């Protein structure tokens, strides 16, 4: 215990040092961990796919699925419709697998995981070992292509909840994986989803059995560390009948001058009367002030409300990445099912975000809500793109969408691209949109009451994002507010 305490003190001191050193608006997760990695050569072909599958000791059926995806991907073209431009991605110039070399072949517990890795997650504020781990939330820690460890597994097992890395699930729970993997996002879905299906590395697997309310929050922390490496996480959450789970996701990466690719797929399945709450705070490195470097974030997230009265909500705070391309969606198949999407997307410097949601109404009396808040500053572009689709079977379907954009400064831009397709005349669809600037009169009003420039901006932004923040779990919402404040420091003047 003594040694442990010393360790914590070190971490705290280290953090303080960094805090003092960092100037306004700097990225505090930009450090790199020096660790020996198992990293097969760059490039992508069938052998790469086979190698990844081999490294993960996967069964034959998994490899077959990957190969089908890879062959399909080869026939596809990268989409060009997003509202931003980026340099071409050379898919042969990327490492597709990078895993820290274990000191021990198979660590029996989290205590045996490489100290360097544990220290890395400590620095990120995610202690993993049993004495120090966070209470009230189970964490799966993913470092480049592999999961380093998962906390609270034995406690969760008592409830029948399975929470482990995707690689572990493929081996230990093949029937569940076979049944649900690709059932919401097929490997043919889109360019980046197909790529992911071929080369996916690690992510989390959550299974909540019938009637169980998951006693703690589940979370995954994704860390990109290795250079020139793509991260292809794959997450699958299954909530059986009448179960409930709240899942959180966080992400960071070191600061580098070159761009790095992140192409993830997340699938959620909610059966009858089940509820899944999925929250993300995305803070990948977004590049420097001139727009050099940063993560290209191409993500497919989709949930299926398969059962009656089921509910899925996506809440996201997107504050990082040079490029964000992401449309968390819900397929409302079960009658009376409910889909929700709450989003704050903040872009500064030269960041680009093209993000929004898709709500596909199939079942009767299905309801969806979209609340999107985009904040753009410096030279950034921020677009909301969304689809509300009401199928002929969806009698009595309802949707409400609200998309608000706020501009900070004169060189940024905001766009809204709402697509609405209604094929049932009993449906009610509402869409509201607004664009505003942080206005000088609001700023003067707050400052004339003694609040300084930063406090005033932070109050205005908080007020603007309130409808989204209140959907986040408490600790996450505090973190989200701090993150936005930090990002906007120096942008208003």
């Amino acid at each position, binding site marked *: 215990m003594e040694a442990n305490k010393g360790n914590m003190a070190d971490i705290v001191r280290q953090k303080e040092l960094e805090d003092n050193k960092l100037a306004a608006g700097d990225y505090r997760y930009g450090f790199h961990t020096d660790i020996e990695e198992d990293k097969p050569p760059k490039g992508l072909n069938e052998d790469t796919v086979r190698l990844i599958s081999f490294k993960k000791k996967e069964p034959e059926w998994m490899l077959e699925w990957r190969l089908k995806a890879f062959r399909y991907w080869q026939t596809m073209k990268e989409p060009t419709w997003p509202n931003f431009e980026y340099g071409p991605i050379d898919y042969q110039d990327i490492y597709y697998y990078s895993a820290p070399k274990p000191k021990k072949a198979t660590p029996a517990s989290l205590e045996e995981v490489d100290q360097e890795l544990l220290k890395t997650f400590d620095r990120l504020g995610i202690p993993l070992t049993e004495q120090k781990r966070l209470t009230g939330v189970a964490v799966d820690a993913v470092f480049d292509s592999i999961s380093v460890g998962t906390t609270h597994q034995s406690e969760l097992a008592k409830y029948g909840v399975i929470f482990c890395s995707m690689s572990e699930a493929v081996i230990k729970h093949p029937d569940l994986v076979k049944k649900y993997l690709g059932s919401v996002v097929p490997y043919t879905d889109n360019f980046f989803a197909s790529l992911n299906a071929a080369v996916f590395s690690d992510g989390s697997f959550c299974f909540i059995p019938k009637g169980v309310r998951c006693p703690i929050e589940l979370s995954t922390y994704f860390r990109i560390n290795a250079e020139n490496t793509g991260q292809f996480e794959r997450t699958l959450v299954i909530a059986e009948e009448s179960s409930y789970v709240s899942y959180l996701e966080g992400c960071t990466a070191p600061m580098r001058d070159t761009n790095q690719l992140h192409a993830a797929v997340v699938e959620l399945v909610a059966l009858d009367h089940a509820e899944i709450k999925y929250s993300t705070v995305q803070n990948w490195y977004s590049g420097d002030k001139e727009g050099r470097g940063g993560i290209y974030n191409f993500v497919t997230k989709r949930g299926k409300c398969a059962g009656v009265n089921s509910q899925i909500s996506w809440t996201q705070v997107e504050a990082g990445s040079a490029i964000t391309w992401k449309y968390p969606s819900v397929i409302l198949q079960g009658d009376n099912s409910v889909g929700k999407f709450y989003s704050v997307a903040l872009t500064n410097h030269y960041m680009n975000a093209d993000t929004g949601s898709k709500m596909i109404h199939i079942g009767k009396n299905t309801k969806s809500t979209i609340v999107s808040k985009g904040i753009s500053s410096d030279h950034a572009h921020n677009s909301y793109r969304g689809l509300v689709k009401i199928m002929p079977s969806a009698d009595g379907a309802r949707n409400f969408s609200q998309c608000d954009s706020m501009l900070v400064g004169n060189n940024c831009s905001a766009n809204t691209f709402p697509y609405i397709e209604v094929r049932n005349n009993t449906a009610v669809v509402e869409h509201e949109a607004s664009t505003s600037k942080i206005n*000088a*009169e*609001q700023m*003067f*009003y*707050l*400052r*004339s*009451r*003694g*609040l*300084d*420039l930063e*406090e*005033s901006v932070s*109050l*205005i932004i*908080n*007020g*603007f*994002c*309130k*409808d989204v923040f209140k959907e986040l779990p408490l600790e996450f919402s505090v973190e989200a507010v701090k993150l936005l404040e930090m990002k906007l420091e120096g942008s208003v003047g």
Partner: protein
Amino acid sequence: MLEIKDLHAGIEGKEILKGINLNVNAGEVHAIMGPNGSGKSTLSKVIAGHPQYTVTKGSIDYEVNFKKINLVGMDPDLRAREGVFMAFQYPVEIPGIPTSVFLRAAFNAVCRHQGTVEMDPIDFDKYMREKMKILSMDEKTIDRPVNVDFSGGEKKRNEILQMAVLNPRLAVLDETDSGLDIDSMKIVSEGVNKLRRRDNTIILITHYQRLLNYIQPDFVHILYNGRIVKSEGKELAQEVENRGYDWLIQ
């Protein structure tokens, strides 16, 4: 407490104040009256430090606790923390932020600057509710977002509530009577009267005399075309009410 000397100021290159001279002592209430376009609102914004107005000449000396500072060039938040307050003619809406949160943030910003202890949410809540009684405000007002969907009367009361909470040394009330019905005006005026003290100063900016029936000023100044053209006791207000402004500006 406040000494304005030969103040010239304007907006976007247009001079609006053309040499204002004004002396205000602690404990006094001054009324500044004048026809539309005479520069009344500009004067209040220049005192509060609105960034869009430029002072081209002159000074605004402000003295509290034997410390004299020239407000010209100071940021508006710093002026506020030094005890300068302006009640807005058109209070601004801040969506999503409860009034109580805003008030506490402002109060604590002032406390930090003046070296006093910040109040925790529970103590502040008590303090704020005491002040609300002065203005007979609905308890729920402070849970609503700042000025959003407030009636005209509610907005003006909210301004005076901020004054009561922040406890400024110099308060400039810019047309606080405009848009108020007679009942609201009585409540607001009584609130302001309760906040009068020997060590603070209130400047009332108004177009009409009727507010001065409820808040008795010690001095009345007539502003016309960017200059103070007449200064007298409170009888001047009545005279303006009877005769209009024309006789003053020949």
